[in-house]
């Protein structure tokens, strides 16, 4: 009959064997006076998708933004605790956020292509970081990023046209391509599909599924179904605390924590 989850299931989506990419230890986040995140610690595994779920205002986005220090750009935001990435704490004052963000890419809720040509949108990151030594070099980067983002076929003959002219879903994939182009190690996604319709959403999910071969992906979503579909590990946040984290399949078939159980089955509050 149905297998015991305790013993390792030979699903394609195992994550325990993957190494830890980011290790968050005792993170607290404060906005001005009020605390948004309470002592959260979690490992984030490389080459797999980790999703954060929870009711809105549970702090999942805030926590995500800690990982490339986007919170620095908000006045009065303070982050305590260590975020160890490849052995060094990214909150360390000596760490240059600019450099960090080139290693930890981010995709936002609303597709936000620059009002430039598709080419420039993707070339931008490579340019500022001087990744391309030559024009052709740059073109390679753009092409490969677009191909990886599954957008090449759709746009290859209008690279010069403005990125804002694309459809919502394409724009979002363009933004992902843009993030890939800098060839980061981690990609953070903040509700990347909440502005899209089911088809576009499915496309993005497919894309994420492919990208996880090469990147460590963290995605915030408030659609449980989406978390279930795309991620190998799921973390459930509530009121700024981490309630439960674990292998996605377990989380959705047999979570240990009652709160999680209630949230997932729609019995919450």
């Amino acid at each position: 009959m149905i297998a015991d989850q305790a013993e390792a299931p030979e699903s394609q989506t195992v994550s325990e064997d993957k190494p830890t990419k980011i290790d968050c230890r005792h993170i607290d986040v404060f906005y001005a006076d009020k605390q948004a995140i309470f002592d959260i610690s979690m490992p984030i595994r490389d080459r797999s998708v980790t999703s954060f779920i929870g009711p809105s205002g549970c702090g999942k986005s805030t926590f995500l933004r800690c990982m490339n220090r986007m919170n620095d750009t908000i006045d009065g935001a303070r982050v305590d605790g260590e975020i160890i990435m490849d052995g060094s704490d990214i909150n360390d004052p000596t760490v240059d956020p600019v450099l960090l963000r080139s290693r930890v890419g981010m995709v936002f809720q609303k597709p936000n292509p620059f009002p430039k040509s598709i080419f420039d949108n993707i070339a931008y990151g490579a340019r500022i970081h001087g990744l391309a030594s030559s024009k052709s070099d740059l073109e390679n980067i753009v092409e490969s990023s677009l191909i990886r983002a599954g957008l090449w076929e759709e746009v290859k003959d209008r690279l010069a046209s403005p990125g804002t002219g694309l459809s919502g879903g394409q724009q979002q994939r363009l933004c992902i391509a843009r993030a890939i182009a800098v060839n980061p190690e981690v990609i953070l996604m903040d509700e990347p599909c909440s502005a899209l319709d089911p088809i576009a959403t499915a496309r993005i999910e497919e894309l994420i599924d492919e990208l996880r071969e090469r990147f460590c992906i963290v995605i915030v979503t408030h659609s449980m179904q989406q978390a279930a579909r795309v991620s190998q590990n799921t973390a459930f946040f509530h009121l700024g605390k981490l309630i439960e984290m674990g292998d996605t399949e377990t989380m959705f078939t047999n979570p240990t924590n009652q709160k999680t159980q209630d949230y997932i089955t729609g019995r919450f509050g």
Partner: protein
Amino acid sequence: MPQHIVTSFTDELEHLSANLLRMGGLAEAMIRDASRAVVTRDDELARSVIERDTQMDALETECERDVVRILALRQPMASDLRMVIGGIKLAGTIERIGDLAKNIAYRSLAVTDADNRTALRGVERMGQAVSRQLHTALDAYSRKDAAAAISVIDRDDDIDSHYNSMLKSMLVYMVEDPEKLDTRSNFLFIVKNLERIGDHCTNIAKVVHYIATGRQIRSSSEPMR
């Protein structure tokens, strides 16, 4: 377990398990009556059992429709999902128990006055044991009680041993009078059926255990003599 925010979802789940329990109750009755019909040679009773099987089928159909609707419209998760999957399995199993009871009822019609009491007594006793087994299993289900379920599984051995002894006596009994063999071979099947009902009870118990805990008990499903 608290209610779902969307109450109608809770309703549907309860509607499902209610139906399952009805099926269970029906099955118990059918077993009891069938085995009594064998002993008392009460054809009326036998027929009523046979009729009740259609009712059983209808119930199973409904359960399965509920399951499909819930899966399609509610996307159940975690415990709810286990409830639903368990539901479809239970429905199948109980329905099969019903069939077996019906089968017993059929065969009871073929039993003649000439058959000897003692053997029949055994059938009735076994029938009761099995239906009791089923009852406890359903009980465990209604209470989502893993422990109870396990106890059911353990008690299955009694049934098996009971079955083996019956089988022997039956064979002896058949040898007595080879002429009547074809009618009396029914006894073999009756006993066999009862034994298989017992096994199904174990399956039910396993499903219940899964629903309750999300884990599941390993063990080869059908033990041999």
